[in-house]
């Protein structure tokens, strides 16, 4: 906790003959982070992949393209397939699937092409079907030129213009899609003159398809065929779906096995080799070190040399050490929030365990409502039970943490969906009467001090409390920063850059306290001296830029007032909804009661959604912007163990 998992650097050296077995052993351990070898020298070169690598990757590519065609998505399953039996008939099943898919693919291509052709024919034939002429009549003349197409202009005007050129012509005019359509047959010698006339009216020529017969009949035939093609494509889609469901387990499982084989086969590409030996440079977690060393010794009987390097002595930079979180299970979900920002580097504090407390705390202070808390708790529990995805599961757990804190603060604020649950404004007492036994109990419930978020007296307390929480949170940040800075740049630098802020705040606090007359007036002067000392230290540590940073202490602290403000806005919305319903709609009776219930449901649903989003974002922001900037650097590399976490298969 608070620190990344301790790792040590180790080297494995052995004869090339043993390489495959060593890879197998390391892969089985799934706890060693291999450092890629990149800088080739005369003596050392990058290893060569195993012979099977290219064959297996080809199979993998084929499998993935099939999986892509079938649209197979990763899923969660309890039904693990046995690796050996799967491998036994893998090739035959892959071929079987491949041929089934290629048959479907061919069919689909043929249908697609035919469908496209038919579409073109239909488009060409539609205007032609307006005239009582067969398609072949529009082409293949030697002495007649044909002009069929759309034209813009007045019908009679065009007719007269054409007649002016020649009267021995056949001019057909029709309307299609609200546009004027003509089919003009003239003798070849008038072509140029006619084209000139037609161009004046923006003539655009139709494409005459290579077909024969009546366009209307052809069109009907094509439309029927189009429907048939659609039906065939649909049945093809059904076939693909059934193929997908029957092969999905096989595809996912074999993808996994092939990935594992490829991973092992290509592993030498990450190692340094000489003509006869290999060198594996890796990181091993300290708690796995003994185990790893023993296993290598047992399996290879000292013929593979295993040596541990001392990180401290080697003076390795923190950024190059892979980081694996080391948190108890309950803190794990918060690592998602850390990753969203940046993984901590190896030498600094991992604040997951701190935000495990502060994130839900801030969230709860802001939302603070028994009703919304219960809704979120239900959502979180459902999410935790239903969600199988590794990426989203932590978020459901996080929602549960936040809802518990919301419930606690809900009790403190005595709020349920914006109503007061107990105290002198208790909704229960109002509904069933203050003088009934039950009502009185809620009315007089004073076991807990109730902070009324909409009460005039309590708001200053809440604002002050949130600023105070902010001060504590910020100073925790400065202390963590002090520790990180002391480790990376020495104690003096840490005192000047981090402790100076705390001293400055102390000075300001003294000035405020003496101004409010809590301490003697002399505190004023002492405070000023302390504050100036803080500023001088800061300038000594950070240089002139430190002065520019000074106002941030005020804006950062005030930023925490959002704990009250965001909360108040959510109470405000709930209050407004309740007021509209109980004060304005319900008293009118009749239909208004139904309308009121509707407003109540919609209003509180919207507020719940806002209640998840707004406090979530603001709680997150207070961590990232106000807290982390005081100490956190991040940029750690992920500890990526060489191995594979199986999801669909098992080894027997």
């Amino acid at each position: 906790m608070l620190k990344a998992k301790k790792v040590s650097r180790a080297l494995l050296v052995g004869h090339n003959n043993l390489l495959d077995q060593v890879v197998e052993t390391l892969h089985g351990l799934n706890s060693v982070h291999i450092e890629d070898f990149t800088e080739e020298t005369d003596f050392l070169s990058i290893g060569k992949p195993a012979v099977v690598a290219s064959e297996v990757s080809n199979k993998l590519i084929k499998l993935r393209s099939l999986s892509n065609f079938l649209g197979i998505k990763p899923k969660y399953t309890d039904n693990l397939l046995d690796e050996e039996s799967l491998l036994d008939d893998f090739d035959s099943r892959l071929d079987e699937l491949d041929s089934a898919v290629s048959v479907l693919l061919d069919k689909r291509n043929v249908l697609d092409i035919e469908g496209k052709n038919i579409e073109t024919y239909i488009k060409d034939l539609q205007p032609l079907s307006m005239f009582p002429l067969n398609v072949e009549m529009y082409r293949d003349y030697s002495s007649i030129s044909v002009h069929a197409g759309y034209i813009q202009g007045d019908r009679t005007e065009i007719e007269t213009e054409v007649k002016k050129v020649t009267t021995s012509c056949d001019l057909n005019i029709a309307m299609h899609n609200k546009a004027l359509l003509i089919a003009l047959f003239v003798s070849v010698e008038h072509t140029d003159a006619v084209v000139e006339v037609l161009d004046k009216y923006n003539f655009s020529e139709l494409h005459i398809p290579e077909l024969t017969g009546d366009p209307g009949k052809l069109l009907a035939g094509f439309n029927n065929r189009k429907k048939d093609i659609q039906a065939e494509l649909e049945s093809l889609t059904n076939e693909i779906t059934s193929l997908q469901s029957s092969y999905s387990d096989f595809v996912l499982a074999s993808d996994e096995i092939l990935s594992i084989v490829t991973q092992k086969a290509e592993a030498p590409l990450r190692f340094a080799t000489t003509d006869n030996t290999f060198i594996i440079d890796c990181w091993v977690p300290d708690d796995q070190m003994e185990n790893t060393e023993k296993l290598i010794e047992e399996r290879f009987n000292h013929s593979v040399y295993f040596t541990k390097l001392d990180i401290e002595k080697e003076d390795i930079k923190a950024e190059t050490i892979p980081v694996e979180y080391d948190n108890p299970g309950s803190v794990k979900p918060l690592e998602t929030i850390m990753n969203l920002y940046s993984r901590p580097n190896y030498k600094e504090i991992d604040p997951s365990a701190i935000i495990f407390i502060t994130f839900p705390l801030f969230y709860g202070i802001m939302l603070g409502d028994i009703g919304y808390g219960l809704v979120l708790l239900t959502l979180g529990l459902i999410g935790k039970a239903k969600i199988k995805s590794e990426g989203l599961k932590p978020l459901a757990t996080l929602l549960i943490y936040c809802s518990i804190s919301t419930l606690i603060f809900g009790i403190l604020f005595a709020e349920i969906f914006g109503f007061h649950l107990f105290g002198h404004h208790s909704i229960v007492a109002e509904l069933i009467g203050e003088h009934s036994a039950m009502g009185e109990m809620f009315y007089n419930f004073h076991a807990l001090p109730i902070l009324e978020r909409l009460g005039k007296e309590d708001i200053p307390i809440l604002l002050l409390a949130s600023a105070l929480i902010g001060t504590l949170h910020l100073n925790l940040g400065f202390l963590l920063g002090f520790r990180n800075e002391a480790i990376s740049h020495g104690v003096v630098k840490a005192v000047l850059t981090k402790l100076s802020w705390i001293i400055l705040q102390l000075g300001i606090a003294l000035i405020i306290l003496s101004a409010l007359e809590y301490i003697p007036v002399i505190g004023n002067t002492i405070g000023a001296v302390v504050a100036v000392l803080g500023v001088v230290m800061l300038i000594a540590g950070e240089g002139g830029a430190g002065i520019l940073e000074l106002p941030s202490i005020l804006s950062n602290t005030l930023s925490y007032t959002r704990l009250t403000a965001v909360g108040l806005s959510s109470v405000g919305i709930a209050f407004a909804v309740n007021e509209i319903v109980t004060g304005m709609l319900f008293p009118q009776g009749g239909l208004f009661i139904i309308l009121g219930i509707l407003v109540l449901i919609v209003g509180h649903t919207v507020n719940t959604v806002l209640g998840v989003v707004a406090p979530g974002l603001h709680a997150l922001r207070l961590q990232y912007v106000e807290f982390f900037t005081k100490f956190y650097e991040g940029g750690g590399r992920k500890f990526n163990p060489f191995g594979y976490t199986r999801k669909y298969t098992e080894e027997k």
Partner: protein
Amino acid sequence: MVDINLAEASVEQILANQRGLIAIGAGLAVGLSGIASALAEKDIGAAAVGAMAEREELFGKGLIMTVIPETIVIFGLVVAILLLFL
């Protein structure tokens, strides 16, 4: 607005008038700071969406960057709360 002649106004009228001005002040505090936040957030939001189109995993960072200017409106809200309740 109701025209009030201060010499003739009753105490209730003056108080009501003050309450009205306070409410206007609170409204301005939230409204104007809201516009300020929006102006700042619009550019960041657009850039964040652009970055997300390139790399989807930037969603988290983009979201955080986008809500940073939210502080402006929070300050406005706090001022409004102070005006209304103190």
